[in-house]
């Protein structure tokens, strides 16, 4: 994203120096120690926990069975169990100069199904999260329309609404790894990705209400935040599946996701789904604002740059095992992952255990929806052999997720955005999982 983009090169240089200054293999040592704890048989942490809570295990009757629990509305808005306190969004501090124009990632390794809890949806904004009073918020439609309109939130919610399950992904997801693997955790390699049920009014309904003038080809969406985020959207997309969204996963949007109203462009790069939406202008050419020129354009090795790269092409990743979720022990292993495509439905996912020499088709689990996270799984019998795990998704257009070598060959390593290549996890004999790339 912005800061990634602009600073990636410097960052990578910084990283190299920083890395070489660090005690060598600090991380690896930690990981191995961690694994001895989890993958071995006599597990230090588990042993500790067992000792502390022996009295709650059979044949004893646990504490919580012998006392009454909390009453209703003692927590009027429910929260996760206190034992889940490490399931949180995280950021990588060195990516951006400050936390106001920055990004945080979803803990994908802790997620089930295809919906991300709203409070764990990744965050990305350029001028902080505004605190908007919905009664004082307005959505304006102006430009090439018969009648410019101004809507209150009440007005908007009187129009017919729709609910759809879609993923939302920042096009810089994975963008730190064009030159080499450097993020030792799934949360950081793929966490600029979430899935939600979005509810709102079709933009086409509102444009019809205003009446589009002949010759209209683009719309500008503009936010009410301090960044005044603005993106140009071709009219075809605006009249297709683009929504003016006010609710996410059954409740009003979270402030970080654009409360009280945002644009949502299914399958397209996250930045085009402008949050805190205050205005839609209809025009006959793109505006070429900062987020569609300086940023969110894809620089190629020859110095030319691709622009208006809206679609998030098919992508997939194995979520278990992963660096944060090493294999627990020998025996049957439920390998799981997610796949998604901005062009439609995921048709098939193949898994390789040997770095792409041979592939097997995985089972699709649960719902297969257009432009949505789609879960896949495969049962394997692991007997402690080292693995090079990969997943390769194919969408309904027939497009096959590419290898990193293919992407680098076509684009070089300075594109930042839209790195949707096959990802490799290296499984060690003790079950530890490392992020690697294949040369």
């Amino acid at each position: 994203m912005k800061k990634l983009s602009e600073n990636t090169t410097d960052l990578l240089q910084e990283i190299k120096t920083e890395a070489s200054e660090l005690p060598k293999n600090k991380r690896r040592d930690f990981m191995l120690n961690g694994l001895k704890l989890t993958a071995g048989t006599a597990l230090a942490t588990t042993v500790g926990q067992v000792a502390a809570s022996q009295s709650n295990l059979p044949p004893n009757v646990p504490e919580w069975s012998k006392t009454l629990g909390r009453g209703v509305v003692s927590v009027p808005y429910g929260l996760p169990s206190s034992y889940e306190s490490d399931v949180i969004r995280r950021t990588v501090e060195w990516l951006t100069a400050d936390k106001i124009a920055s990004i945080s990632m979803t803990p994908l390794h802790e997620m089930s199904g295809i919906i991300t809890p709203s409070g764990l949806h990744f965050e990305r904004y350029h001028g902080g999260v505004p605190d908007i009073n919905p009664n004082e918020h307005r959505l304006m439609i102006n430009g090439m329309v018969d009648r410019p309109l101004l809507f209150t939130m009440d007005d908007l919610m009187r129009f017919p609404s729709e609910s759809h399950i879609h993923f939302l992904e920042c096009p810089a997801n994975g963008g730190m790894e064009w030159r080499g693997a450097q993020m030792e955790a799934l949360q950081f390699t793929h966490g600029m990705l979430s899935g939600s049920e979005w509810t709102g009014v079709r933009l086409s309904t509102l444009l019809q209400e205003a009446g589009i003038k002949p010759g209209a080809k683009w719309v500008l969406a503009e936010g009410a935040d301090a960044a005044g985020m603005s993106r140009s959207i071709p009219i075809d997309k605006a009249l297709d599946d683009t929504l003016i969204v006010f609710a996410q996963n059954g409740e009003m949007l979270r402030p970080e996701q654009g409360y009280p109203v945002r644009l949502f462009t299914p399958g397209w790069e996250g930045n085009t789904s402008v949050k805190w939406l205050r205005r839609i202008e209809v025009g006959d050419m793109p505006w070429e604002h900062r987020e569609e020129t300086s940023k969110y354009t894809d620089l190629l090795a020859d110095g030319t740059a691709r622009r208006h790269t809206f679609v998030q092409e098919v992508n997939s990743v194995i979520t278990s095992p992963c660096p944060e979720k090493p294999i627990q022990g020998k025996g049957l292993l439920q390998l799981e992952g997610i796949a998604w495509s901005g062009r439609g439905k995921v048709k098939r996912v193949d898994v390789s255990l040997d770095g792409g020499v041979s592939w097997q088709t995985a089972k699709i689990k649960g719902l297969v929806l257009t432009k949505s996270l789609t879960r896949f799984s495969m049962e394997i019998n692991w007997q402690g052999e080292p693995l090079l795990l990969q997943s390769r998704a194919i969408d309904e257009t027939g497009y096959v997720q590419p290898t990193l070598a293919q992407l680098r060959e076509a684009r070089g390593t300075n594109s930042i955005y839209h790195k949707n290549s096959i990802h490799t996890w290296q499984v060690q004999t003790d079950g530890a999982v490392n992020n690697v790339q294949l040369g």
Partner: protein
Amino acid sequence: MYNSVKKKFKTLVLAVAAQGLLTSTVAFADESKYGFGRTATQEEIAGWDIDIRPDGQGLPAGSGSVADGEGLYEAKCASCHGLFGEGEGRWPVLAGGEGTLAHERPEKTVGSYWPYASTLWDYTRRAMPFTAPQSLTADETYAITAYVLYLNEIVDEEFVLSKENFSTIKMPNEPNFFEDDRPDVKNTTCMKDCKDPASIKVVSTIAGVTPLEHLEEGAAETAAEAASETTHGKAIYNQSCAVCHDHGVAGSPKTGDADAWGDRIATGTEMLVKRAITGYVGDEGVMPPKGGNMSLSDEDVAEAVHYMIEKSQ
């Protein structure tokens, strides 16, 4: 779910009938319309329609010279972007980098990468200075835009930028953008013997750059503690002061750095609060009034200063 009328239910009985009538008149006016919302006035549109296009559409009347821009830039932009657009610390670089786009380490700046000058005008008014967006006048924006173009050697130092001559500015990199033509790669669905296993080389990660503290023992508690200690002062600080004081940007004393704060704290809290409110030019740099966020009350600023002192003792 949001509904501004939820408290009005008791008084609704009579109102419903009257409103029902009203809505139906509107709806009957044009059968294809819902009739919700109202016409936006020209005045309302003028206040919000701030976008500028490459063809100049949207530019307000006005002008500004490179010379005027220099002073404005140094006062409002240089603390982050550097006197020559070179970027202080990790803040964005605005100038230089010509001819580097095809290099191993390209430097993308306004001059080397941006295809249109209108983008600079639009973004500067819309989003900069970072701590006070939409605070520049049209003439100031023309002048600062002219100056940033001058730093990039796109206009000369005598130049005066105006609505009238805006379209004469051509950015050198404009021809190098092309429309999305993906898919640009084609993988196959090979299932067997797809490559020679002996050809596989495993390249590991660069160690030590991922924040992994949370995977170590006891991490959850630390995170919970950190999350619970939110104060108003801290919130204000994060919003308006951290941009500089977190990292010591622009010569500001870094929060938490007891050495940098020792002498300052010794002058007394009252003095520090006063300077934070009214602004202050010291030996190290410029502390803008209220950190550039004039919407803060004096109390807000005082609380932020208290928080900074507490963290820096």
